[in-house]
């Protein structure tokens, strides 16, 4: 993981922990599926996550990744967001 992706992943963990009120998500491994059972995001929390990512990182994941493949795991989401931020300069 590059430093930028690592920092983005830390930010995403903070957002997830805040949205869900679950402190254990601050230690979430990068390979964890977001909508799988470990995190078990529901669609409402997933929507709030995407809006918060847009607010904090300036990346509209839903608009740029129509199939939402970036949401597969914490790591794929962090890579997607970090790459879009780098491209935007």
């Amino acid at each position, binding site marked *: 993981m590059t430093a930028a992706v690592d920092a983005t992943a830390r930010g995403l963990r903070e957002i997830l922990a805040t949205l869900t009120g679950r402190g254990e998500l601050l230690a979430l491994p990068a390979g964890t599926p977001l909508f799988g059972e*470990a995190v*078990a995001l529901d*669609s*409402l929390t997933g929507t*709030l996550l995407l*809006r918060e990512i847009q607010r904090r990182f300036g990346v509209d994941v839903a608009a740029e990744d129509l199939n939402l493949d970036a949401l597969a795991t914490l790591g794929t989401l962090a890579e997607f967001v970090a790459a879009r931020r780098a491209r935007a300069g």
Partner: protein
Amino acid sequence: MPAPAARLMPLQPASPGQVLPAPPVVDLWWFDARAEIVRPADAAVLAAGERHRAKTLLSALGRHRFEVAHVMLRRVLAGYLAAAPGELRFGRQRCPRCGRGQGRPVLLPGPRPAPFFSLAHSGDLVLIAVAGRPLGADLEQDPAGCVCPVTEVLHPADAAGLARLAEPDRHRAVIGCWVRAEAVLKCTGEGIGHGLSGLRAGPAGPIRRVRGCSVRSLAAPPGYQAALALAGQGGVTGRPMAARPGPG
């Protein structure tokens, strides 16, 4: 004052031979995970995939809620099919919008016509809705914080109505609108990835017809909001069930 609470189900023995209601009635089964104990023998009805999913949950509370929801789903449906809960097999239809395999969860064909069902769980509560035609139920706990960003993905008319409300009343109204939209999506079998902005489900309240479904808000226990959608334009009525299914 909160809306009158829907009655949670008291402990009752098994109820085999449950008869599907005639439309527009939908059977509603409510469970409170705090009142349930899932013993290993209870969890044994789960399929290997379900047990694996439960094991991968991070917290014991999450595992418990998952097991309650899925054990009760099997018990409820088994009552309509006069089958053993462990015999049921589940699959997913394809999304009618994109053809991907993330559409409506269904019972796989067996010797008897399978009922349609919708499972929703949030916080400690589980809602299982059962009918003879496609349906969708959604349940959400009242928000602990601001959920105003959700309005950005709702139908513009619904979002405009919500914007006129002051916080924190708006937060509860957002969830009231969200559960109706989710119930419609579950009813049509479309994935949420296709968005909600084209779907005007309306604020919490009476029946609205949208996307070939009838959707209404339900009386949920305090701290929760729920909605129910049934395929067709003929309305929808929830019927809280008086018996709680046993291990079968």
